[in-house]
């Protein structure tokens, strides 16, 4: 009986758990509750993925109301993959949060923190699960609002300023999305994604549809933080509490990429988006600039969180680039990069959190000589960094492989070269980190630092071990990604 309701449980559980969590005044209790919920969510998403890979698309009608009048939760390979990524990240980061949050946020607020965190999780999972356009808007705002506050809980006053900046930009983006959905509703009379995809083609006057496409795309790109709409990201990731940075870096923008995929391919269709609308001409140059500029600016940063935030901007460029190819290899590369980047960036920010916990700073200078004193943390950081470069044996290499393959298949020579150049630029900042950690003497008076506690190290290493494991055993990730790509492109299976 429960199994039939798994799709809605995936979203309803954290939603109900959030206010319950706020009621639990004791910080440890709130944390334990949140951890249990996140583990339950992971189990659910794994079950859903197995079912979808075996049975095909799952369609769940909310309240028993049939679509297109009722809200439908439509789960296919792509959905479930994204659900899995988000719940896996949550399941790993929540245990980590206990010590990290305890050191960065005042104790009386912990129950509020975990409640907000569960709300953010609800929103992200809801975006991934739903098959209704307006539902996407609502869940997006739920997750964004929760994220604004989570970011604002950071210890420095800049966290509040960063949260405000993110609020303004994020709300503009969501409102654009709303305008687009409204225009689509006006012309077709439905909000269900599958239904919209069929009706959009038959609309007599296409001008509102073009306008809708533009609004929706720009709105999503703000959430995705693609250049030049990325301005909110560096500040937000830098000043948020460490665990929040890790969680958001690994999930929020990935969901943005998912929404882009849904709207561009499922709703509007590849033919409309790429042939009648100049999506490739816009998306491809922007993503290439994001890759190069994002990584280049990262080189000059001294704050490690800021460095990896700019690195994220570059990596989002890879996601968008894969989408702009609109081919099986390109989409496979983008979808698999959703998973790979989530693992790598999540692990990196968790490692930075360990560093912050023990040394109180995430400056590059605090990293000097840390290779000896906190060997596991530094090793985790380096492995993640090498994954960003795309060294073989890491999962980053797998994504790059498919992206360059897509470029070569499309005869886009310069793009293939630029993708590889992006790896080289990433190498420069990763090289700086390696050098600082292992080949520079520690600052005077710094010998009292011990390795981070197991409770923080194990989640970090789980994510990074996953990034190594899936760099070599690619069947699961690439298999699901390819299935999702083919489904998006409408290639019969």
């Amino acid at each position, binding site marked *: 009986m429960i199994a039939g309701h798994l799709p809605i449980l995936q979203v309803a559980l954290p939603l109900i758990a959030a206010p319950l969590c706020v009621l639990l005044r004791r910080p440890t209790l709130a944390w334990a509750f949140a951890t249990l919920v996140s583990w339950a969510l992971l189990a659910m998403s794994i079950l859903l993925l197995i079912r979808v890979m075996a049975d095909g698309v799952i369609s769940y009608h909310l309240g028993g109301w049939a679509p297109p009048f009722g809200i439908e939760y439509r789960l296919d390979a792509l959905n479930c993959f994204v659900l899995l990524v988000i719940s896996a990240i949550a399941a790993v980061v929540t245990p980590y949060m206990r010590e990290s949050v305890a050191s960065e946020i005042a104790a009386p607020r912990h129950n509020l923190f975990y409640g907000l965190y569960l709300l953010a999780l609800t929103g992200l999972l809801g975006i991934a699960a739903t098959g209704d356009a307006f539902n996407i808007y609502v869940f997006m705002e739920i997750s964004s609002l929760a994220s604004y506050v989570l970011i604002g809980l950071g210890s420095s006053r800049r966290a509040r300023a960063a949260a405000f900046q993110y609020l303004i930009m994020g709300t503009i983006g969501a409102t654009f999305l709303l305008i687009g959905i409204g225009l689509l509703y006006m012309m077709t009379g439905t909000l269900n994604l599958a239904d919209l995809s069929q009706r959009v083609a038959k609309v007599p006057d296409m001008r509102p549809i073009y306008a809708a496409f533009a609004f929706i795309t720009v709105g999503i790109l703000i959430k995705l933080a693609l250049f030049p709409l990325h301005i909110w990201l560096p500040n937000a990731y830098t000043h948020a509490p460490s665990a929040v940075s890790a969680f958001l870096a690994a999930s929020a923008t990935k969901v943005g990429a998912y929404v882009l995929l849904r709207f561009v391919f499922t709703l509007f269709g590849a033919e409309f988006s790429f042939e009648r609308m100049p999506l490739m001409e816009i998306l491809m140059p922007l993503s290439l600039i994001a890759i190069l500029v994002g990584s280049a600016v990262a080189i000059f940063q001294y704050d490690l969180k800021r460095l990896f935030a700019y690195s994220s901007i570059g990596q989002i460029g890879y996601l968008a680039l894969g989408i702009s190819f609109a081919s099986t290899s390109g989409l496979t590369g983008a979808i698999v990069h959703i998973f790979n980047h989530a693992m790598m960036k999540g692990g990196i920010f968790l490692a930075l959190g360990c560093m912050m916990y023990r040394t109180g700073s995430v400056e590059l200078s605090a990293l000097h000589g840390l290779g000896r004193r906190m060997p596991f943390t530094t090793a985790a950081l380096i492995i993640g960094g090498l994954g960003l470069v795309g060294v073989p044996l890491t999962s980053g290499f797998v994504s790059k492989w498919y992206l360059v393959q897509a470029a070569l298949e499309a005869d886009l020579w310069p793009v293939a070269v630029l993708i590889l150049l992006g790896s080289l630029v990433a190498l420069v900042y990763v090289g700086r980190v390696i050098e600082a950690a292992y*080949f520079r003497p520690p600052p005077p008076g710094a010998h009292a630092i011990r390795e981070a506690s197991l409770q923080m190290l194990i989640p970090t290493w789980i994510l990074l071990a996953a990034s190594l494991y899936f760099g070599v055993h690619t069947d699961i990730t690439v298999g699901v990604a390819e299935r999702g790509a083919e489904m998006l492109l409408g290639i019969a299976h």
Partner: protein
Amino acid sequence: MSGGALILLALAIPICGAVLLSIIGRFAHLRNEVSLVTSCGLLAAVAALVPSVMVGDRPSISLFEFAPGLKFAFEVEPLGMLFALLASFLWIVTTIYSIGYLAANGEPHRTRFHICFSLALASVIGIAFAGNMLTLFFFYEALTLCTYPLVAHSGTEEARRGARRYLAILLSTSIMLLLLAILWTWVAVGTLEFRAGGILMGAVSEPVMAVLLVLYVFGVGKAALMPFHGWLPAAMVAPSPVSALLHAVAVVKAGVFTIVKIGLYIFGLDAIRDFASGEWLLYVSGATILIASLLALRQDNLKHRLAYSTVSQLSYVVLGVAMANAHAVMGASMHIAMHGFAKITLFFCAGAIYTATRKTHVSQLDGIGRRMPFTMGAFTIGALALIGLPPFSGAWSKYYLVLGSLDDGAYALLSVLLISSLLNALYFLPLIVRAYFPTGGQPLPVVGGIAEAPKLQLVAISITALGSVALFAYPQFLFNLLRPLVGM
């Protein structure tokens, strides 16, 4: 034990050694023992594969699939067998040497040193036994990463700069050029397997083949073909054992080994010979040989002189592949082994001289032959082997390369080979002569009262020097191993 299991064993032994070292590394004598046992074990595993390869078997094993149609696979063929044997044998010798060197010079971070060495050797075995270009690329990159901490070992600003340059040049070439070539081959041909006769013939057009050749050859930065040779002199900031094994044997040999493998199994000798766009490779390698030798003449730092000599000698192998006939390729493959023994001897001697006298420059070596006769004797053997004079090993490979150039009637190449031998003589012989018969006649300062280098280092030096001589006297093993490669 089946061939496949032996291959995996050969890979597992150095990796387990590295793991073990990271656990027990604090105890100095245990550390040395573990290193020695690991290296001996590796040689045993590799040697166990030799009998089957000699009769024509190709032991292979494939692991998981990286992408549909692309497996992570290993296959042992004669050239790979040679490389693996060379590297594992010389690892034992280098371990003996480095134990002595690190102790005598009081170097820090010795555990990290041995761990990285083990991992580097594991990468070398992976490269040697790779069954397709993807697997080779994986281990190629792993080798670069494992050797970076070795180059930056001493942690001084100079070492960091040298290591940065090392990493930058090698990773830039491998990511921008080699990976691009691999992916292009994959997209165009649909396979990356190593097959006799190559996989490109008939699958891609001639202009594409020409571009691919450029990308592949320059993408293998470890072969130090000009203008991407700059990392070799930069890597000389490393301690001598590192320079010895890695940059005279493992890293550079991985580079030229990869080029020979690409030439034989991706392009196929016919493709290289028959289409004219392969000619530029003759010019580039010939130019590298000559220019590097001329640069070596100008170097006063002994290790830098040896580095440029290596750059020049590596291009012999590339030249052999570019000539693409049976004799030339035989000579090129033999040169991998012969140069390895000779160069490692030279680097060992350079390290011994540094340990005993703290002298690093050629101009300071007057009269050292009297104080360190053993070391200089070995140095002389190594130098003569590189020049190509019998009865030392280099003679055979030079001989086959010359035969190869005569086969094609390429007198220009013949003269390049002869002039470079002359240049080799010019930058080695005066050094040796002045070491024994100094013109200035001043005694050198001695560190701690030792006249010769520490015993362990001497043991290593004598093994490799003897190896140089042995390779000349008994080349049949090499010859028989390599014959099926070229169909002789």
